[in-house]
C-alpha cells in the first residue's frame, strides 16, 4: 500500500515522498523489526560473536559451529527436520480431508468437529503425550485390561509416537488454514472439471490444487510448530533416546553453564532447513495465480453422502476426535481427578478435590485474569499485524521486504520459544537501551510484544491462504469508485477475511493464554502468567492441581471462543457471513 507512490504535481510529490516515509507501513516495519527481526538476529549473532552480548570471550568465532557440528546435534536436527516434514504433510493431508468432509458434505459429524476444533488447539502437547502414555505405559490402561503391547510402547517412545502426536497436534492448525481458504473457493472450478469429464476424485484434486497456498501455509505452520515443540519431545523423545533439535536446544539453554553460542549455532543450522522449506514453497507457487474469489464466486452445494460414505466420513471424524481430543482429555482426567500423582492403577478414585482446591486458590484467579488480558491484547494486535503481513506475503510486488518477512516469520516459529525469549533479553536488556531511558525490559508491555511476535507467524500463515484468493479487481473497483487504500481495505478485504480473522484471533488467544516458554523468561517480576503457575504446580508434584488449572484455563478459553463466534454471528452483516456458506 505504501509503496504505491503517488503523483500529484511536483510539489505534492515531495510532500508525498515525505509522507511515504511516515506511512503506516513504516510503523509496521518498525514494529516487525523490533519485535521479530532484532531479537532473532541478536540471538543468532551470538553464534559468531559471543562477546557482543557478554556470552563469551571472542568477538568473532566459528567455534560454536564446530561444537554444533557434532554428529549428535546434527542427528537431532535431522530428526527434527524429518519429524517436522512428516508431521506437517500428514497433518495437512488429514486436515484437508476433514475440511472437505466438514465444509463440503452433509456428514452429520461436521457440527461436532466445528465445536471441538478449538479444544484441540488448546490441548497442551504434554497432556496429549500424557494421555497416550497412560494408555500404553507399563501398568497403563491397556495393561490393566490385560493387553500388553510392548512393541506399541516402544513405537510410542520413538519417532513414530512423536511423529503421530505432532501430527495430531498439527491438525487443528492446518485445519483452520485450509478451511478458511476452502470457504473462499467457489464450486465453479470443480464443476468445470466434472463437466469436462473429470471424476469426483479429479475434482477433489483440482480443489486441493487451488488451495495450494493454504496447504503450504498449513505445512509451514505445522512444520514450524513441530520442530519447535518441546512438550512432546520432552515427554516422549528423551526416554526413548530419540533426540530432536528442540531437546538439544533446550538442553544447551538449561544446562549449567549455559551455552548460548552453541545454541545459536544449532538454531542457525535448523533455520537453514527452514529456508529450504521456504524455497520449496516459493518454487511450488511461483507464477501461478490462485485468485479464485470474485463477485462471480458460486456458493458450494453440500454433497449428499450415500449412507455408506456418510458412515465412513462420520467414523473418520469421530475416530479422529477420539484420538486427538479423547486421549488428552483422558490424560487430563487421569492426572487431575485422581489423587496422588495421577495413576490409573486398580482402586483409583475419581473426585473433584483438585478442582475445588484450585478454584478457591488465589494462584488461579489472578494469573488466569492476567493471562487472559494479555492474550486478548495479543490476539487483537497480532491479528491486525498478521493481516498486513499476510497481505504482504502474497503481494507480487515488494520483493526483498516480502522475502525478509517470510523468513523471519518462519524463523520465529522454527526457533523454540525459549530461544526466542532469550533473543528478547538480548535485544531489550541492552545497557544502552536503558541508558537512554528505554525501559521496556521486565514490563508487561514487552511480554505482550513477545507474545505478539510469537503468535504472528501462525496467525499470518493462517490468513495467507485467504489473502491469495481475492481477485485484484475487487479492491481495484473500490479504489476506482473513490475510496482510499485504507477504506478499500476495510470495505472489501476485511469483510472477505472477517471469518478467517476471527479464527485467527481465536487461534492467537488460545495459543497465548497457555504460552509457556516466553512467559517464563520474560514475565515481569511478581506477575506470573498462568502457564508459569501451572508449570510450577506440575513441577512441584501437584499434577492434580496443575492439570485442574489447565482444564479451567481451557474451559475459559473455549468460552471466549464461543463468545467471539456468537458475537460474529449476531453482529456481522449477512454478506460477511454468507461467504463460503453452502447453499
Amino acid at each position: 500500500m505504501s509503496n504505491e507512490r503517488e503523483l500529484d504535481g511536483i510539489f505534492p510529490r515531495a510532500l508525498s515522498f515525505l509522507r511515504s516515509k511516515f506511512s503506516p507501513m513504516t510503523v509496521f516495519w518498525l514494529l516487525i523489526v523490533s519485535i521479530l527481526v532484532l531479537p532473532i538476529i541478536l540471538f543468532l549473532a551470538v553464534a559468531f560473536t559471543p562477546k557482543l552480548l557478554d556470552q563469551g570471550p571472542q568477538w568473532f568465532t566459528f567455534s560454536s559451529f564446530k561444537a554444533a557440528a557434532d554428529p549428535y546435534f546434527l542427528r537431532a536436527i535431522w530428526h527434527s527436520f524429518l519429524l517436522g516434514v512428516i508431521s506437517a504433510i500428514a497433518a495437512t493431508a488429514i486436515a484437508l480431508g476433514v475440511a472437505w468432509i466438514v465444509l463440503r458434505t452433509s456428514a452429520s459429524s461436521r457440527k461436532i468437529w466445528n465445536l471441538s476444533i478449538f479444544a484441540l488447539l488448546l490441548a497442551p502437547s504434554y497432556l496429549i503425550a500424557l494421555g497416550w502414555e497412560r494408555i500404553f505405559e507399563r501398568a497403563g490402561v491397556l495393561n490393566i485390561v490385560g493387553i500388553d503391547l510392548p512393541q506399541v510402547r516402544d513405537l510410542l517412545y520413538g519417532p513414530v509416537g512423536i511423529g503421530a502426536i505432532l501430527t495430531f497436534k498439527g491438525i487443528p492448525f492446518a485445519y483452520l488454514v485450509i478451511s478458511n481458504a476452502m470457504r473462499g473457493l467457489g464450486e465453479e472450478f470443480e464443476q468445470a472439471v466434472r463437466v469436462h469429464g473429470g471424476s469426483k476424485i479429479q475434482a477433489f484434486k483440482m480443489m486441493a490444487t487451488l488451495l495450494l497456498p493454504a496447504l503450504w501455509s498449513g505445512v509451514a505452520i505445522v512444520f514450524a510448530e513441530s520442530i519447535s515443540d518441546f512438550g512432546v519431545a520432552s515427554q516422549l523423545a528423551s526416554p526413548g533416546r530419540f533426540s530432536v533439535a528442540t531437546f538439544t536446544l533446550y538442553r544447551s539453554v538449561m544446562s549449567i553453564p549455559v551455552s548460548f553460542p552453541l545454541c545459536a549455532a544449532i538454531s542457525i543450522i535448523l533455520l537453514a532447513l527452514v529456508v529450504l522449506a521456504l524455497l520449496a514453497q516459493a518454487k511450488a507457487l511461483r507464477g501461478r495465480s490462485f485468485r479464485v474469489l470474485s463477485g462471480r464466486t458460486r456458493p458450494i452445494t453440500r454433497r449428499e453422502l450415500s449412507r455408506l460414505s456418510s458412515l465412513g466420513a462420520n467414523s473418520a471424524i469421530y475416530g479422529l476426535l477420539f484420538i486427538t481430543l479423547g486421549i488428552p482429555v483422558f490424560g487430563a482426567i487421569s492426572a487431575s481427578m485422581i489423587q496422588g500423582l495421577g495413576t490409573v492403577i486398580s482402586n483409583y478414585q475419581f473426585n473433584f478435590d483438585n478442582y475445588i482446591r484450585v478454584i478457591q486458590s488465589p494462584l488461579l484467579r489472578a494469573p488466569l485474569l492476567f493471562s487472559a488480558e494479555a492474550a486478548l491484547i495479543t490476539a487483537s494486535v497480532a491479528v491486525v499485524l498478521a493481516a498486513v503481513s499476510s497481505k504482504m506475503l502474497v503481494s507480487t510486488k515488494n520483493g526483498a521486504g516480502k522475502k525478509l518477512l517470510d523468513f523471519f516469520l518462519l524463523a520465529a516459529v522454527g526457533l523454540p520459544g525459549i530461544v526466542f525469549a532469550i533473543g528478547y533479553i538480548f535485544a531489550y536488556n541492552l545497557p544502552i537501551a536503558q541508558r537512554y531511558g528505554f525501559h521496556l525490559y521486565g514490563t508487561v508491555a514487552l511480554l505482550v510484544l513477545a507474545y505478539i511476535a510469537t503468535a504472528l507467524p501462525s496467525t499470518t500463515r493462517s490468513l495467507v491462504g485467504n489473502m491469495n484468493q481475492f481477485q485484484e479487481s475487487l479492491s481495484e473497483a473500490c479504489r476506482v469508485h473513490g475510496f482510499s487504500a485504507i477504506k478499500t481495505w476495510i470495505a472489501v478485504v476485511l469483510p472477505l477475511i472477517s471469518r478467517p480473522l476471527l479464527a485467527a484471533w481465536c487461534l492467537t488467544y488460545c495459543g497465548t493464554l497457555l504460552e509457556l516458554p516466553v512467559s517464563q523468561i520474560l514475565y515481569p517480576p511478581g506477575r506470573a502468567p498462568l502457564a508459569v503457575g501451572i508449570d510450577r504446580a506440575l513441577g512441584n508434584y501437584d499434577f492434580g492441581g496443575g492439570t485442574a488449572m489447565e482444564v479451567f484455563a481451557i474451559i475459559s478459553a473455549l468460552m471466549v471462543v464461543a463468545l467471539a463466534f456468537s458475537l460474529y454471528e449476531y453482529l456481522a452483516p449477512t454478506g460477511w457471513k454468507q461467504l463460503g456458506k453452502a447453499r
Partner: protein
Amino acid sequence: AHAADALQLYAALDYSTDVAAAFTAKTGIPVNLTALSTGPLLAKMTAEKNNPQWGVYWADGAEPCAALDLDKQLLHYKSKGAHLNAIGVQLAPKTMAYQVPGFTEMVGVVYNSSKVRKPTSWDDLASADFKGQVGMNNPSISGPTYPFLAGFMQQLGGIDAMKAYILKMKGNGMRVFDKNSKTMAALTTGVINVGLVQSSSGITTVNIYKNKPVTGVTPAITFLSKTTVLPSCLAIDGRASVFQQDAAKKFADFVMTTDAVAIMTKSNFGDSLFWPTLVGRNPAPGTSTMPSIASGIVQFVDPYKYASIQGEIQDWFTKNIA
C-alpha cells in the same frame, strides 16, 4: 534498573513467595519475585548478563553459585546472627559467596515396596534384581541432579568411575526422565519401580501415598551410601545497585533467621521438606529423619571443584545415557 525500589528476587523454591511476603512485612522492602525452576532461571540470568537484573538468587544446588562466583559475579557476604548447626557450618562456603539456610539429599531412593524389595547399595541397584526397574533424572534438565553425579565422582574416585557406574546402570535398563516430578510420576504409574530423586520430592511422594493409599503403589524412601548433601543456596549479585545489595543483604539476614525457616517449613510438601542448617530449627513434620552424618552415608562435595566440568559431564550424559 526498573522498579529500583524493590528487591529483585530470582528464586526456584516453592516457599520463596511466602518468605518474600514475610520479609516485606518485616522490613517494608518490597520484593519482586521471579519464580522459575532452576534451568530457566539460570538461562534468564545468563542472558541478562550484560545488564544484570537480579538482586538475589536462591535455589537448590551450590554449583551454579560456585560458577557465578568463579565468574566474579557475586557479592560475598556473611549473614549476621545466623546460628548454624554442624552441617550448616560445613556447607557454608569459605568464600562467603552464598548463604545456605538448609539442605536436601541427593538422592533419595524411592522404591515401590509393593513391587520390589528395598535396595541396599548402589551395586545392588545395578544388579539383576533391579533390571529395568530404575529411573533417574536428566542432569541437563533437572538442576539438582548434577550434584548426584558429582557425588559419584567423589565417592568412586573420578569421572571415569562415575561414567562406568552410570553406564552399568544404563546397561541394567535404567531409564531417564526430565526431572523429579516426572521420575516420580513414572514410579507411581508403574513405569519404573525405583526412582532416584531429590529427597524432598521422594518424601513428598511417599507421604502422598501414605495419606491416600493406592493398592499396588506403596512408595518408600531409603538412602544409600553415599548420599550427597544438596545445599539450598542464596547469592547476592555483586554488580547490582547499592539499594539492591543492601536489600539483598537484609533478605539474606532474614532468610537465615529461625522465623524465616519456620515459614519455609510450614508446608508439608515439596521443597519445604528440607533440613534446616540453623540450630534449633526442625524440619517440616513430614520430613523423615535424615541419615546421620555419623553413619558415614552422607557426603559433601566441593561445588567449586565440580562446577567447572558440569557442561562436559552433562554433555556426556546426554549423548550416552539420556
